[in-house]
């Protein structure tokens, strides 16, 4: 087995400066009463907040200046996302574009797409969704059936996507569609396209989640027309694109800090004189969090050096999302209340309610726990 080693990340000066900048921004946001940390997370959509984040220069910071970026290190971006999560900021409007869609377009998109889209993402004016899952293709991503056919120099797309977060808000999706035969390994013939949600041929149907919120959707394509310059990567390269994209996002701090605010609320609710049991349980949670923090930051350092520690990244997501799932289960036993989404004046109760209702998604989104364990097992040499 490979001996896992998580070397200390060395934060470059631009990351240290970014931390100061984002903290000042978030403090001003809280003081202005722009958001309530105990009632949101990175999966809270707030277009106004994202516009202010863009104006503060905190989106797309690693991208070239000619596309609106600042050419900062990936560790500077890492620090910004970390601080946003720790502050409970409502980041969903720019999260997907900043984390994966923008970087994909930058690396594999056409010049026209880069010029049209990236500067708007940086300004906090352009939002993205992910078009991977389909009704019959969830964890088995290679089974996608949405098809693009060539006609008169353009592509005509028919089919549907599902579980598309914010499809009713976003300007674009990046959709994985079939453009050719699957081949023996089932990974051939897939291509990614940027879908402009304002064009004809695409409709959105809401799906309400168990918390009663409208966050994800079903998206239907009926003779949707797309041109070559909206293709991401080469024709038939879709599988390599999405697996690369997933590996890159797995070790991020959004895989262990989704319900960080609940830990903050728990500590404050328990108070400065915890019982032995409360102290031990909180201490245990903090020991898990500090370890995850180190693993994730260390991997961010490796990614920054151009390495691809895929097994370690899958480990962070598996261990990190398990931690996220465990947190509300422990919190509710340490402070025995009956939590509610509307409990005026009791921010612990409201946070616990919010997290309890959203926790099932933590170990599903971005690759289920079971898929991750398969990837880890392959990394261990078992398959």
């Amino acid at each position, binding site marked *: 087995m490979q001996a896992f080693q998580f070397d200390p990340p060395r934060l470059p000066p631009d990351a240290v400066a970014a*931390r100061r900048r984002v903290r000042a921004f978030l403090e001003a946001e809280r003081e202005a009463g722009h958001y309530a940390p105990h009632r949101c997370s990175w999966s809270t959509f707030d277009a106004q907040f994202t516009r202010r984040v863009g104006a503060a220069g905190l989106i797309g910071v690693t991208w070239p200046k000619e596309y609106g970026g600042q050419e900062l290190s990936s560790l500077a971006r890492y620090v910004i996302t970390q601080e946003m999560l720790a502050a409970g900021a409502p980041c969903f409007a720019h999260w997907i574009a900043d984390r994966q869609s923008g970087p994909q377009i930058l690396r594999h998109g056409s010049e026209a797409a880069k010029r049209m889209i990236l500067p708007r993402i940086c300004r906090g004016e352009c939002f993205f969704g992910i078009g991977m899952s389909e009704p019959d293709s969830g964890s088995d991503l290679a089974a996608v059936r949405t098809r693009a056919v060539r006609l008169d120099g353009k592509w005509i797309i028919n089919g549907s996507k599902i579980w598309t977060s914010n499809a009713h808000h976003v300007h674009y999706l990046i959709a994985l569609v079939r453009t050719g035969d699957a081949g023996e390994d089932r990974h051939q013939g897939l291509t990614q396209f940027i879908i402009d949600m304002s064009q004809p041929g695409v409709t959105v149907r809401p799906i309400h989640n168990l918390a009663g919120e409208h966050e994800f959707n079903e998206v239907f394509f009926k003779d949707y027309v797309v041109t070559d310059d909206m293709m991401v990567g080469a024709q038939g390269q879709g599988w390599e694109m999405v697996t690369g994209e997933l590996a890159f996002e797995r070790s991020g701090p959004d895989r262990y800090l989704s319900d960080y605010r609940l830990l*903050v609320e728990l500590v404050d609710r328990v108070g400065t004189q915890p019982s032995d049991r409360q102290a031990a349980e*909180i*201490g*245990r949670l903090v020991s898990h969090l500090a370890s995850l923090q*180190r*693993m994730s930051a260390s991997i961010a350092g490796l990614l*920054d050096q151009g390495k691809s520690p895929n097994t370690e990244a899958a480990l962070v997501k598996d261990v990190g999302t398990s931690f996220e799932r465990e947190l509300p289960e422990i919190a509710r036993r340490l402070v025995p209340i009956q939590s509610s989404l509307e409990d005026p004046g009791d921010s612990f109760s409201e946070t616990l309610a919010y997290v309890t209702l959203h926790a099932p998604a933590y170990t599903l989104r971005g690759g289920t726990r079971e898929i991750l364990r398969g990837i*880890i097992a392959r990394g261990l040499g078992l398959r």
Partner: protein
Amino acid sequence: MSTETLTREQTEAAALSAMVVEQADRLFRGEVTKERMAVADRGEWPSAIWDAVDHAGLTSALVPEAQGGSGLPAADALRLVRRAGYHTLPVPFGETMIVAGLWAEAAGATLGGPSSLAPAGTTDRIGIERRGDNYALHGQAHRVPWGAHVDQILVHAHDANGSALLALVPHAIVRTERRRNLANEPRDTLLLEGVSVPAQQVRPAPASCAEGFLPAGSLLRSLQMVGAMERCLDYTIQYAMERQQFGRPIAKFQAIQHMLAEAAGHYAAAAAASELAAESFGRIDFAFAVAIAKSRVGEAAGKVAEVCHQVHGAMGFTQEHPLHFATRRLWSWRDEFGNESYWQERIGRIVCSAGGELLWERLVGS
């Protein structure tokens, strides 16, 4: 290139450290044979192993070069302890390394021979008082690693004013009762009542161990456990690939794959926590970092041992299979120098007394 560029000296130092660790690993692998493990398991001092380790100068890794040590950076020196854990080295290697480093710091003197430290538990407290040219000790220290086998024991004691002193006590003048842990490693009782030590063998405790040996001891056990977990997983992955049932290696079953993936996650988190603590050794944030490490590593140790035994089936439950040399140590080491509950409570009290909003800075810095 956005990460800070390492200086040439740093690069050379890193290469040297890597070489030392690699050489130590090879030495441990060669010296720790199954026959010698069986001897140590009977409670006999494995002198051949000790002599080889001592001869290689590895126990002086924390002693500055000017005082005759190898002067490795602490984090690198401590990697040797992780490798010792991997090979279940049945001698007080880490203990001797820590004692040599502390005594060099406190007294400016070098030590030879195997050493240990006391107290090693959360409840023992040793008293000390001046009597003419000597100091007299009071109390008992329990579960002292190799307490009846080492040449000297560094004792952390408090005088009537509550000041912390270190007394270097030769083994020959202490009465001991032999005890052992689950891995049959000696964990002896020292009867220190009335033991008299010359004043030059007593020094004020340096800041790094002002509160006793629990943090340093926990760091050792954390690193050893990470090494031992790695060994368990190596055995287990190999076994799962070889063992055939229902016409195929059991590694091909998803149930086995997922168990091992989960165990690997615990191991990885434990490795990260122990590295964090090793790097902060000697720094102001060491106490918190080592509390994190012992909590997280101790929890992982139980999970990894359980999964590895489950995958090995009855074969791993035998004396014949070497898995138990690692797992019995995991079960012992997680309890030594304070178990998970002890350290978790300490973390919890520190975090709660500061309040929720200050936790983040503690995790990532200001």
